[in-house]
């Protein structure tokens, strides 16, 4: 796709600087999910280490466990994948522009918090293959999906170098919705990241999503230790198919009470 870099840069800045009200709370809740600190403490009643003055009374009674040791629990690190539905249905009602703004606001939060994250769009097409049962010879049809991923920001890439690409998001809407394959492949990609905590944000209108397929996707994600958070762009349908879901008809909804309620739920 031929893109006007200057126009995309302008669009990026427009969305980046247009911070909705209430984003402070959203940012705080998000970071509580995604970021933790190293926990440093002391374990007592050790037989070697640093002398524990509080244990001197035990020493008087013959105890040898009068030492303490430094105890460090390393912080959980997080990887976040932000997946944007760029199918044709997102062009309707300007959903893709809402998704564009939401994506950049979320990316802004992740970037400022030093979270490892990627922003990827998806669209694609359906395929059909015919095969035969070996024993009966009966023909059956198998439906497949080919996903096109658009790497707006790759893992490890800086926001600065990705800014032009991030400014192009709304230009990419079109073609089909290989939702199942896109989610499964994104789970695969996220599972490879080294961080202990993994979250997949999906921005979509959930148009044509099959609940049983999404149920399976969520089960697989859970088995892989990945949390899926769906943001329904201009559509409440997302809540019918995803366990963790909120809707956003406007970028301002990112700062809304309902979105923050969802984030609070995820902390538990």
């Amino acid at each position, binding site marked *: 796709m031929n*893109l006007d870099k200057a126009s995309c840069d302008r669009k990026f800045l427009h969305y980046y600087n247009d911070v909705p009200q209430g984003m402070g709370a959203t940012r705080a809740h998000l970071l509580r999910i995604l970021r933790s600190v190293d926990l440093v403490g002391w374990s007592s009643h050790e037989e070697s280490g640093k002398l524990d003055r509080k244990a001197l009374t035990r020493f008087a009674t013959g105890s040898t466990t009068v030492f303490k040791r430094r105890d460090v629990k390393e912080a959980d690190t997080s990887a976040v994948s932000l997946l944007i539905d760029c199918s044709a249905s997102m062009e309707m009602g300007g959903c893709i522009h809402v998704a564009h703004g939401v994506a950049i606001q979320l990316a802004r939060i992740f970037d400022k918090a030093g979270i490892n994250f990627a922003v990827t769009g998806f669209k694609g097409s359906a395929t059909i293959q015919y095969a*035969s049962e*070996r024993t009966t*010879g009966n023909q059956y049809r198998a439906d497949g999906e080919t996903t096109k991923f658009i790497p707006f920001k790759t893992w490890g890439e800086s926001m600065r170098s990705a800014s032009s690409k991030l400014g192009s998001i709304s230009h990419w809407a079109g073609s089909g919705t290989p939702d199942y394959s896109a989610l499964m492949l994104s789970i695969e990609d996220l599972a490879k990241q080294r961080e202990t905590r993994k979250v997949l944000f999906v921005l979509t209108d959930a148009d044509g999503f099959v609940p049983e397929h999404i149920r399976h996707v969520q089960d697989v994600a859970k088995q*892989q230790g990945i949390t899926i958070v769906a943001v329904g762009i201009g559509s409440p349908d997302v809540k019918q198919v995803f366990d963790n879901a909120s809707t956003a008809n406007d970028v301002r909804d990112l700062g809304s009470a309902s979105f923050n309620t969802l984030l609070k739920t995820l902390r538990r």
Partner: protein
Amino acid sequence: MKGIDVKRGVAATMERIVANSGSKFRSLQVKWFGTTAGINFNREGSQIDATVIFPALDELADVDRGTFNNLIGFAIHEGLGHGLYTNNEPWDQARAKHGQYVGQLINGLEDPRIEQRAIDSGFAPNSKYLFENLLNSVLERDGYVEPDDLKNIPFMLAVEGRRLNGYHVDVPSIIDQSPLAVHIHEALHSAKQSRNTEGVVLAAIKLYEQIKQYADEPQRSDGNTKGEGKGDPKKQPTDDSDASEGDSQGNPTGGSDKGDQDSGQGDQDGQGNQDGQAGESDKGEPKGESKGKSNGKLNGGRNVDPADFIESEVAGKLSDKKHPRPYTNKPVIGTFTWE
């Protein structure tokens, strides 16, 4: 391990093979759908596009290590072995001219040959162990065949050819107990020395003539088709399954790529629509099938190809049939072009 780990492992193996083989493969994909296993491949000049097909394994199914190893072994056998080293054209022509049994003989001779080529290539380290494991898994489950069972000579070739490759095979050799021992030895050695499928086809046709001659001798008219030495007779394939086996090299069981928009190509056998007409290859005997007395004694043998073993390994672990999920093709990555 879970099905998702298995799929990951198989995909990684294919990627490694592509990387190690230089530019021999333009693509080597794995697809998981339906209930059958096999390969589609297409050659354009020196470039090969191959797709190994597995049944639709559920990502959350529990899979043991042995099954995982067998799936990897099958993927290498089909993707690397047949994909790089088998030429379907002479095989298909021989089968069309001489019949399904010759196709089976070719299969029995070709499988060890292409596995040896795969091992020698070095593109898939540890492949010998995996092939050996797969063979012994099949033998452990279904047993071996009787040495004088003519319809199972193809299966015997597949086992003994691999023994000649240097595999440790868990069952003793039975060739010398066969009334056709000399001819079988000759065919095995001829196939082992063949540089291509054409050589194997010639060896198979020659062996077929010798088998037919033996089977048509008057004192053989009461038949030599005893049952198998081990294994449950109920597991023996019927004529129907045997008739469909011949498609396994081009396509799982005669399925087609009709309407497969992502590959943009038809059947991979180089015969246009053979695989698209799944039922047609099963209708009666192919042209040129011998009408001699031997014909009845040669049908119904064990499936040479490990595909049906693989299918049975994962049969209870397939994804939801009520809500079949789409199979996932290799993704395409969009690129940015700035004006």
